[in-house]
């Protein structure tokens, strides 16, 4: 009986002098794992154009019906994405989102990825429905915010879809100098694929 008492009371007494398990959360934040599924980000190309092409595959993939997308056509004067279409309305409802990541798997252009940010709380419902302006990644340094004109885009001469599956979104601009050259895209294995978030 006395051994049991010594052990039992000793344990609680010793524990008092052990370091505590608790993290002082708002002041001290434990880093997440690098692939933690946090808040979504809508990525951009290095020149500032949006990667989202408004295909709605993310919305279809979503098991919680948390994503709402409306696509619209790019025009030569107002181009938001290098593709034919872009997402004019893009909303993710974090009241519904379960952060499963099926949407980022569905995204064909890697426009939608997830960050490590997990502090998703607000005191109103509206504040938790993230609209496009809150989801978009910040503009790269020196980039101009969309819309761009086709002339500007062609002048930059970037290859947006650097792989063998790429298309030329500016085919109608055939006369422009410095369009994407096949020689640049010769070896997909050597060429870096996608943007910086990969």
């Amino acid at each position, binding site marked *: 009986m006395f051994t049991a008492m010594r052990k*039992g*009371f000793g*344990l*609680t*007494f010793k*524990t*008092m002098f*052990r370091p*505590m*398990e*608790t993290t*002082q959360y708002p002041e001290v934040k434990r880093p997440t794992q690098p692939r933690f599924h946090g808040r979504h980000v809508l990525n951009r190309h290095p020149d500032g154009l949006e990667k989202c092409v408004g295909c709605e595959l993310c919305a279809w993939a979503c098991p919680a019906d948390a994503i709402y997308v409306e696509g619209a056509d790019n025009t030569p004067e107002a181009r938001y994405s290098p593709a034919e279409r872009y997402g004019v309305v893009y909303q993710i409802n974090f009241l519904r989102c379960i952060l499963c990541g099926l949407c980022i798997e569905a995204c064909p252009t890697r426009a939608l990825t997830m960050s490590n940010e997990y502090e998703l709380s607000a005191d109103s419902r509206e504040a938790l429905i993230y609209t496009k302006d809150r989801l978009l990644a910040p503009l790269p340094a020196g980039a101009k915010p969309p819309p761009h004109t086709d002339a500007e885009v062609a002048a930059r001469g970037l290859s947006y879809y650097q792989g063998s599956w790429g298309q030329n979104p500016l085919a109608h601009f055939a006369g422009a100098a410095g369009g994407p050259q096949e020689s640049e895209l010769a070896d997909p294995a050597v060429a870096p694929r996608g943007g910086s978030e990969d």
Partner: protein
Amino acid sequence: MDGVDLLIIVGKAVAAFALWLSGTAVLIWAERRVVAKMQSRVGPNRLGPFGLLQTVADGAKLFFKEDITPSNVDRATYIAAPVMSAVVALITYAVIPFGGTFSVAGREVALQVWDPGIGMLWFLAMSSLGVYGIVLAGWSSGSKYPLLGGVRSSAQMISYELAMGLSMAAVFIYTGSLRASDIVANQQGALLGFLPAWHVIPMAPAFLIFFTAVIAETQRPPFDLPEAEGELVAGFGTEYTAAKFAMFYLAEFMNVITVSAVTVTLFFGGPSGPLFGPDWLRPLLGVAYFVLKVSVFLFVFIWLRASLPRLRYDRLMDLGWRLMLPLSLLWAMATAFAVVLRQSADQATVFKLAAGGVAVALLLYIAAPLFARKDRGGDAAAPEEVKA
């Protein structure tokens, strides 16, 4: 009695009230912090340094919360019960000396609100009265869990009061007085030259029984069956909210301090300790010793809570009636025998009487089973009947 006497009385009452009330606030904070530490947690640390103001915030919150009175309560009793608990808790500590003696305006003033001849009986009476608050709360709430909690509580307190009273009686017999100041005075000096002459040394069994019994009396873990969360939601307090709940809460924690203080008074020399320094410091040193000693017992209360699981109800009754009651009775008798032996001139007669008493007790012990009614059946017979 003139105005100065009256002022002194009021002053003492206010001092004791302040000590106990601030002690309660600190105890609630300390309990949460220490239990948290013992469970590798942090505990309240947001409000004030180390979360010290948490109790104040909780108290303020409780008093401003919506006061809900369920529809089938017995209104008058329902309101009276928490008041009763709180008032009893607030007056129980009146008889406990919490500091030394100092002189004010030519009068010797002891730091003790009231020093009647009945002394510690006041504590026993008040702790019995405290049960009423809980029982009436359980009954008047008009729902099942509080009623069960109240019944459990009364059964538990009655069972353990016996052992508590008898172990206190041993101290009274040893001291020859019920007066708290006499009990403290009896513990002055030293035993064998180096040990303090505290009653805990000659009265060790009484101390162990008393301390176990007061844990049950205050309904602290591991004897907190009246408010066992897993079984009774919150026991007698289930239907109480806001200020009424706060009164129960206050009474509960204040009782913990009071019983720790009684333990210190009866067994650990009360506010006595080595005195030094100028005259004005001496009574304050007494207060410091008293607070220190009480704090040790408060820590033990918290330690028990963090370490022990709750007792099963039948085990609780078993422990109270079949172990602690006979032991405390035996110890009270042994103490009485020793005291009478020391005081009487004719020791041979005392021994003869004691031997006669022991012989009768033994005879009864052997003979009692012969008169037990067979048809009732013992513990062993009951399962057989169920099977058949």
